[in-house]
């Protein structure tokens, strides 16, 4: 489809979901998927089914919790929200991500790109 579509690195989807929930509060699966796509300026086109696998993983680790509720347009939907330990994990992962990104950036920007 879109040749500009970005492939997500393994494990980053979880991070994105966590961050989304952290920013938006309580949200259902479709909402999370849409939000990620919007924020990325539609550069990331998710296979939306994978969102649910990510949600299950995060739930199993106790980083998010789920509850059935009523959506804006009066529909029954499952709402997810971040837990305190999820917030802690998010902070940790974010700083980790930044460090890794910085290192990789440095390596890639060094001349030649060959190993010493």
């Amino acid at each position, binding site marked *: 489809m879109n040749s500009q579509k970005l492939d997500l690195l393994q494990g980053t989807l979880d991070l994105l979901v966590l961050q989304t929930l952290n920013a938006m509060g309580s949200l*259902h*699966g*479709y*909402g999370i998927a*849409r939000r990620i796509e919007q924020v990325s300026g539609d550069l990331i*086109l*998710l*296979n*939306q*089914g*994978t969102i*649910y*696998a*990510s949600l*299950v*993983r995060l*739930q*199993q680790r*106790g980083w998010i*919790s789920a509850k059935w509720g009523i*959506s804006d*347009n009066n*529909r*029954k*939907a*499952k709402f997810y929200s971040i*837990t305190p330990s999820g917030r802690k994990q998010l902070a940790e992962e974010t700083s980790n991500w930044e460090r890794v990104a910085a290192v990789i950036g440095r390596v890639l920007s060094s001349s030649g790109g060959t190993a010493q």
Partner: protein
Amino acid sequence: MSGRIRELWRRLFSPWRARALEEEFDEELACHIEMAIEDHVRAGMSAEEARRRALVRLGGQTQARETHREAWGYTWLDSLCDDVRYVLRAYRKLPGFALAVVAILALGIGSVTAIFSAIDQVVFQKPFPHYERLALFGSHSATLHAFVANSYPVQIVPCMERGKSFEAFAIKHWQYGFINAGVDTYGVSSGSVNREYFSVLNGKAALGRLFRPEEFTAAASSVMVLQHQFWKDYFAGDPGVIGRSVVVDNRHYRIVGVLSHTFPHSGLFPSDVFMPLVLGQDPAESEGTCVLETIARLRPGVSMAQANAEAALLGAAPHASQRFRDQYAQSPMQLRSLADSTRFPHFSSIHGALLGAVGFLFAIACINAVDLVLVRYSERRRELGIRSALGGSRSRMSRLIFTESFILNLAAGLLGLCLAWVMKPLILRTLAHSDAMLENAACLDARTLVITLGVSLLSMGLVALIPAWKLPIRDPQIILRESGNACSESRWLRRTRASLVVACAAMAMVLLTGTGLMTRSVRKLLLVDRGFDARGRIAMFIDLPRHLQEPLARQIFADRIEARLRQVPGIRNVGESDTIPLLNSGQKIIPGPEGSPTMVSANYVSPGFFRGMGLKLLQGRWLPSRPEGSGGVMVINESMAEKWFGKQNPIGRKIRIAQRTSWVVLGVVSDFRVDIRSKSVQPQYYFPSWQIVYPRRALSLLLDFSVEPSPALLQSVRKIIHQVEPLAGVRTPVDLEKEAHRAINKERFTLGILGALSAVSTLLAAFGLFSVTSYSVSLRMKDVGIRLALGASARHVFVSVLGRGVALGICGIGLGLSASWILTRHIRSLLYEISPLDPMVYVTTALLMLAAVCSACWIPAHKAARTDPSRLLRME
């Protein structure tokens, strides 16, 4: 937090909840798709196109479901299964390790289970349901100064008819009679019992049946149930007795059943045979001459005091004769809880000692298992390091350790249960005070299973915790850098193992000391001088038929039997007495030296009794075999002479034995002791059997054999008695030596169990030391080789290896001796005439332990010394 726990719960049961989860997800998915469609429609797509786009973006419903299910997965369970598979695969390669650990743990778990559940059964479990609600009827006897469990129909019938406190009654009318089944006459105590008797007291038939309701009428009551022991004695355990006809006191009965060996229960008065009781037939019942033994089961919620008040009121018997009511006014009817009046074993020092000992054994077993597991993990530390370097978290690896411990302990628990199943009956035999206790001995009940489970969980925790805590994965780099040679034993491992070995040796030492003390104590008990030798002494009880019960007839019969038996080769002496030492005693209250009532032992004897018992004449002369004058005569024992006359000569003095009766002392004989633990001996007097004036129903003989009293010899004695009097009922002879041993059985059996526990503990401790020493030798093989190559003597190597092991052993011994010094005072009450700090025992057991320690280190030291340096160095 609760969210996490819920989560864990959810995950644990996810396989079972899979359907529910999938349905829930379908709902969520449907919701997702509809929302997406709505969005697309709002953006201007047709409904059909919107739906297509929504599904495409989702990546297909089936795929979404698949990934969801995978994510939910059984990740937790999966990794557990992985661990289990991994551990089992490892054990298949190392069966020796797994077997050793399982065997050691099973030994610990099995012993603890057996002893715990035996003590639980003896101390905390009641023999049958509602036991605590049973009450015994009786009254306080002014003459005996004690509660006497006698009651009378005139008292009991009103209680049965109008009593509101009672649920059911077990009534027995006790009588003495003679039974004849065609061969021998036997004196029996027969009990006529009411309809509910066996149901209240939990009597069950081992053969045949118990009474039917219609047999409790005068016409149908000629049926009989035999008590188990009597059936074995009199009928030689013949299963064909059912349906046979027997005569008891001229009345014919048909045998319908034999009771199980667990009846009668402890504390209940035994009867040999049982018949149905039909009350209201005998006019003597109102006279208070028909004595009953009555047990009532109180209604639930009725207190003993309430029942007591009601019994006293209803038991006043307004319809009884005046004489009976006068007597009743002196001692009204009372109730006594059966659980109180029977001696229930309370938690005592024996139980404490056994629990302590088995606790030590358990600890030693666990420590040994921990030690083996530690070594294994140490050998695997490279692998663990790699796992940890590849991202295996500490908790993930701890989980592996717990899984391994779980598998080992599961196997050990099952094996331990089998062990407990074998051991429990043996232990129960020691602790149980009655056969009833043995009823459930063989089966392992739910309580036993719970105990095993608890013990296994405990050992699982112990075996997992230390390795998990001490696991060398702190820094994988260090481990990985250790290069290929794993010859250096890491310091933490060496130290941990050394302290474990020392702890084992110390605990084994405590057990050995305890066993040593018990051994000496039991040996002292065995050597106690009772004042007579029980060896070769046989007691024989003969029930006399009616025509031989009068004093004169009885005397003539006794003389004839004694004379005949004295001619039997192998019999040295024959004597008659109304009581036989160790079996019974004739207690009597007489006016003491200062006139106050004093309890003494009074026996009539034939002259042969003194010689038969081997008593020594200290002063005066023996009792004469014929009356010599008109007055009564007696021989007294040392204690009585001492108490009545002090240092004065008692010969020829008179002792009052009743208000108006005094007898002349002819001689003083040596004391003998029945209770070997008591320091003092009861005053005792003997009088000639020709002096008795009341009819007697039985004759007890004491036979002193110069040869081993074989069954054939005893059979010939029986035959001779029957030649003299065919109707005489000869009971099974009793070996006094066995009775003497029985008196200290409690100590002997406890010693047996303690001995076994401490032997196993010592072996385990030695095994631990052996494994530690040989492991370090195997790791230092290269060092040893180099040292030998450089000229160290084999002897030197041997001593250095041995020295290290023995040093650890000595640490343990020292620690164990100090612990014994503190702990053994708790078994003081089990020890007879020996201090818990007996130096002899401490030295002997320490030497024994040292020997065990030395032999454990000997083999590895020997192996080290015989290393061939050239071969070792060539191997590099």
